[in-house]
């Protein structure tokens, strides 16, 4: 079931979007949509019935943290699993993301194994909830 998930990947760098999409394809997730910041992602999320959101933090326009807060503040999207995939590695930033309700946090550069483990863990938590 999970491989049929509809995933939105949000990153301002087109190379990183391609990389994440490629890795997701390798993991069997083929329904992947891309957006380049929170401002373009949010309308897609509101209208697109996505099952999973992977977002960068540092983006022009709406950064990932604001996108996360907008998702958690929207009744229809509030329970959407959100994985933050970012180069932001400061302790206070990670705490901020956790307090905003992030489901998982992966620091760039990352490995395919780490990405897979985090997605699996988030999905397992969601299934158990």
């Amino acid at each position, binding site marked *: 079931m999970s491989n049929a998930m509809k995933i939105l990947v949000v990153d301002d760098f087109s*190379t990183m979007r391609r*990389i994440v999409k490629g*890795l997701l394809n390798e993991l069997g997730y083929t329904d992947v949509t891309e957006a380049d910041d929170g401002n373009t992602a949010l309308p897609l999320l509101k209208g697109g019935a996505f099952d999973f959101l992977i977002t960068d933090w540092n983006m022009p326009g709406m*950064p990932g943290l604001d996108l996360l807060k907008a998702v958690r503040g929207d009744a229809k999207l509030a329970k959407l699993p959100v994985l933050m995939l970012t180069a*932001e590695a400061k302790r*206070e930033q990670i*705490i901020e993301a956790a307090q905003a309700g992030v489901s998982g946090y992966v*620091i*760039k550069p990352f490995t395919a194994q780490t990405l897979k483990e985090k997605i699996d863990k988030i999905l397992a938590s969601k299934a158990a909830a």
Partner: protein
Amino acid sequence: MSQDDTLQGRYRSIVDELAGALDTNDEAAFRGAFDRLRAQLNVEFNPELKRITADAQSALRRFREEARLEVLADHEVPDARRRLAHVVKLTEEAAHRTLDLVEQSTPLVDRMSVEAAQLLEEWGLHGSRQLAVSTMWPERATESLERAVRETEHVRRYLSQMLLAQGYQDLSGQIISSVIKLVIELERVLGELVALAHGDDTRRMPALKLEQTQPQPDLNGTGPHVPGVSRGQVVDSQDDIDALLASVAGGSS
């Protein structure tokens, strides 16, 4: 120090006159005492004011005469900004080209792997042992096909790692972009200083100072950690991140 040099000696009589004029509501006396106070202040502070003004004028004159700063402001700093932007563009193009090749190679490797596995299976079904008795070729072909299945799996993993390695473009691009922002700020400040030195525009200086004092909030992101440069406590292992997330209410690793 003589009595006249003390604060009281210099100001007591004037302040008393001011207070007396206020008490009696004597405006003329008040103005007279006030003028004397202003004159005393001028005597004390004018030399310092003149020295500061002279220093500022001298600094402006030297700045105006320093052609190197103008070249920096007009050409070299903007060129540096454009060069950095070009580096980001070149690395982005190179990364996309590599991703193109990885994406083109992956299905070829997949097909080789699948075909080799299918041939091995069919070879087994059609009695490879009997054929192997008559010639060495079928045995070598079997080994080759087995190796193809094994090694295409390696190549597939290498391609996946190549895909991931292109993430350097994102990280280096973020770092260069933050330097570009700094160069843009430097370019603007230099331009305004040159304009100020030439008396072109002094009204923009307060805005310049205001923007300089505004810190970049971490909540908008600060980019990748750079050893020796980044400030703040950095969490650099995935295990530590997971533990930190788990320790904060509402987060799950």
